[in-house]
């Protein structure tokens, strides 16, 4: 389609900023300023270029677009294969959107080691975008795993008091899952002689028992990333200790890697195992939705509360992905995007308070509406979006998932829906505690409302949330063809396996 390698450009452009940050020299003030500007500039340019993807994306095609295929390690038959389809398109955009927002939000908040901070975020962006574009298992793994390095440093260097613990827990948990996935990838490579994902989608046809083992290996990696109950415990720690922008990326993009992995690899490559393990996933997801919502109700830390709410929301995502009909998968994807925007915004809201008071304990705040009307509005807006108020983004995803689920399994739909109810309870409770009531605490008497930079940070997120809620077709249409193919391929694979097992 396009003659120039736009995906590679988007993936590696942030490294230009990294290079600039590395070579820039001079007095500390100037270096910090230059690094901030350079990082913002590169990430904004990257975002603008990535918009071209959306503009030039052919919504009628189910396959991969903007493909680039080069030799990388011919000796092992590993290629550099990039491309996007309806599933990955918006994740790329989400990554490129959130990076400049993160950089802008930490403009004043990060004062130490600014250079390293900016480098870490730009490298992170490269890995995130590359992960969503990769169409080769080895390449996918390189990006998937590479994300750990900058994220480990971001939590560990700029995090809170227990940052070391949180950083190690994050790293080791995710690594443990990922290495098992590496073995699964190697097994697929051994069977096929190539690590090309489209080839694997076409040709991979493993016996059932093998599929189960591989599914579990992929599951180990993606379930930790999503995170699903009971391997979610790293998330609250990581969120609480990470700096604001770290939480934003963590909630906005990193969690989506798990859901994306399920849809990109587990389901198309291992359909029979997917069918076999789907009830397990439903069970874990339902527990996640209800249990973590209840846990969220008793949190004393804002970030922890939002972290638990993320686990609950991602439970809806995994249900949708494994119900595997048109509505549920689209809903699952939509829910991931919506969660990516909304939870990112909620963490930014917490960050606004943290920058002023240097704490995210709920008890410290109260009655902020009197001093911070603009902030109260933004926080209300995203709280409602997170609950799933019709007209905002959260509603569409949850509705589609529940609709699709209801057709297949009413009990799962019913239990998942209770989670939404609980979600409203804790989110509104949090809002009530922080924003409403009398402003009695002396420490808050002089608190300032959002400044212009902060408004600029939130504005795009508000607009996107509205857009997704009011006219979701802009987002659903590009997904439709790909999701249709995914579901269709899955159904025919199951049918084929079924007839094969019936045959004498």
């Amino acid at each position, binding site marked *: 389609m396009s003659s120039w390698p736009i995906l590679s450009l988007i993936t590696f452009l942030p490294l230009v900023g990294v290079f600039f940050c590395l070579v820039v020299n001079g007095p500390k003030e100037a270096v910090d300023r230059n690094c901030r500007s350079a990082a913002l500039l590169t990430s904004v340019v990257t975002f603008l270029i990535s918009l071209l993807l959306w503009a030039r994306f052919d919504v009628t095609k189910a396959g991969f677009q903007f493909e680039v295929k080069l030799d990388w390690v011919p000796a092992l038959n590993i290629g550099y294969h990039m491309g996007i389809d309806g599933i990955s398109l918006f994740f790329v955009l989400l990554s490129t959107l959130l990076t400049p927002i993160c950089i802008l939000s930490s403009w004043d908040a990060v004062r130490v*080691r600014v250079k390293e901070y900016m480098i870490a975020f730009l490298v992170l962006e490269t890995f995130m975008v590359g992960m969503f574009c990769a169409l080769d298992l080895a390449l996918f793994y390189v990006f998937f795993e590479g994300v750990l390095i900058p994220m480990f440093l971001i939590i560990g260097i700029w995090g809170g008091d227990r940052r070391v613990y949180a950083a190690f827990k994050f*790293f080791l948990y995710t690594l443990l899952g990922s*290495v098992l996935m590496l*073995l699964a990838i*190697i*097994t697929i*490579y051994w069977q096929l002689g190539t690590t090309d994902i489209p080839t694997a989608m076409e040709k991979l046809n493993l016996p059932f028992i093998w599929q189960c083992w591989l599914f579990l290996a992929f599951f180990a990696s993606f379930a930790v990333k999503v995170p699903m109950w009971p391997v979610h415990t790293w998330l609250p720690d990581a969120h609480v200790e990470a700096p604001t922008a770290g939480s934003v990326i963590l909630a906005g993009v990193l969690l989506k890697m798990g859901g994306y992995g399920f849809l990109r690899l587990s389901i198309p490559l291992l359909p029979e195992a997917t069918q076999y393990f789907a009830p397990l996933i439903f069970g874990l997801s339902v527990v996640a939705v209800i249990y973590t919502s209840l846990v969220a109700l008793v949190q004393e830390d804002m970030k922890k509360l939002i972290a638990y709410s993320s686990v609950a929301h991602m439970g809806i995502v995994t249900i949708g992905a494994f119900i595997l009909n048109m509505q549920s998968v689209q809903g699952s994807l939509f829910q991931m995007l919506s969660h990516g925007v909304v939870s990112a915004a909620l963490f930014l809201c917490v960050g606004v308070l943290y920058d002023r008071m240097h704490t995210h304990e709920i008890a410290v705040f109260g009655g902020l509406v009197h001093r911070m009307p603009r902030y109260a509005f933004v926080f209300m807006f995203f709280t409602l979006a997170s609950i799933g108020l019709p007209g905002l983004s959260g509603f569409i995803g949850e509705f589609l998932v529940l609709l699709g689920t209801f057709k297949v399994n009413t009990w799962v739909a019913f239990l998942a829906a209770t989670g939404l109810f609980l979600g409203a309870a804790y989110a509104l409770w949090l809002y009530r505690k922080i924003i409403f009531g009398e402003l009695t605490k002396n420490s808050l008497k002089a608190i300032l409302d959002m400044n212009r930079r902060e408004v600029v940070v939130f504005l795009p997120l508000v607009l996107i949330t509205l857009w997704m809620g009011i006219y979701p077709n802009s987002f659903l249409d590009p997904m439709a063809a790909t999701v249709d193919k995914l579901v269709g391929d899955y159904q025919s694979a199951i049918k084929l396996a079924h007839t094969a097992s019936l045959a004498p």
Partner: protein
Amino acid sequence: MMLGLESWTLARPELFLAAATALLLIYGVVRGEVATPFVSIATTLALLVTAVLLFVPYREGTAFASLFIVDRLTTTMKALVLVGSAIAILMSRAYFERIKAWRFEYPLLVALATLGMMLMISANDLMSLYVGLELQSLALYVIAAFQRDSIRSTEAGVKYFVLGSVASGMLLFGASLVYGFCGGTAFVQISRALIEGRGGELGVIIGLVFVVAGLAFKVSAVPFHMWTPDVYEGAPTPVTALFAVAAKIAAMSLMVSVLMGPFKPLFVQWQQIVVVASVLSMGLGAFAALRQQNFKRLMAYSSIGNVGYVLLGLASGSEKGIQSVVFYLAIYLVMTMGVFAVILMMKRRNVMVENIADLAGLARSEPMMAIALLIFMFSLAGIPPLAGFWGKLYIFIAAVEARLYVPAVLGVLASVVASYYYLRIVKVMYFDEPAEALDRPAFSINRAVAFAAAILVAVFSLAPQPLSLVAAAAAKGLFP
């Protein structure tokens, strides 16, 4: 016995190195201490020239009545060893000058050890194997104790000597059994005897076990690893670097050529031993290192763990497996050299320090050094996109293809545990508040080595192809 010209041309690099070392030794003895700078530089050059001679012109074949073999595999391994030794000599100077022990004997002993390594890599007979091994070991025993007035260094030397002799004894005993049952010491004879059905005899199996045990000692695989932490910690740091890199690669290469050569018919038997040693090494390397405070000791356990991965590649016994061994060792060489270059730069108030806690806050006081070490640590932990990941990937591909599923799973799990202590170093450098800063290293060879290695490791992902081609060509040597 006819020793034609062919033999001499095949052994050209070894002969050159032997002659150069002998001449430089005479020169050093005649001139005394003043000869040291010249001898060290000349020895480094001699090693590099030897490396060039390996390839220009490239020859293959057997020499000296089949005592000596040259093929792609041995040539590649020798090149790695020579580069490792040459860099080790370059890195030594500042260290020994500081402790006033910079003597001309040191580079010459390194050269002699290297010569021994080359001979054992090229061994094609149990006799030449043993001669090469002993030449290497004797030189290494001496340089482990080279810091004569340090108790730790002499202790390391003695320990290495005593335990090394025991291992040599075991190897020799095993070799004699094999000789007795197979009727020859030449690799071809052993191989032929085994194929003809001698393989089932108990004596051969016992002999094999002893040979493998002796070799496992030399590569410091569990359960023959006990000497490694003490010797690595006690020996002068540049010597530790030599042990960790050149000596290990040479011993590993020897193990490959013995097991994949004459004992190939007994693959099923030795595979069990190697798999067990591999899993135990990976596990011990991961768990025992968790609580180490001394960086050199940590690297000892790290090297034990790395040997475990290499052995896993060997245990697959396939062409891919041997490729992965070569591939892994080349990457291991670069990473480990880099780490030791950084350790050699760790000085506080002009005194060498080697505790992990001494690195606290390095990211602020010496950001470039910290970044280099960060790259090495993530690479040793096997995190992509750094070079170490590719080494592990190659090994695990070979292991899975050989259906060694359980060892492969244990291996990746061990690598997660091991990543903890690599991360701990990153944590100390980046997350902890600075302790008293280390001395600012002036420009030095060590700095250059560290940066060059860091850059190689960091950008390796751009082009893993050339190294995999080298590995593929090397493995062809055993699978003609």
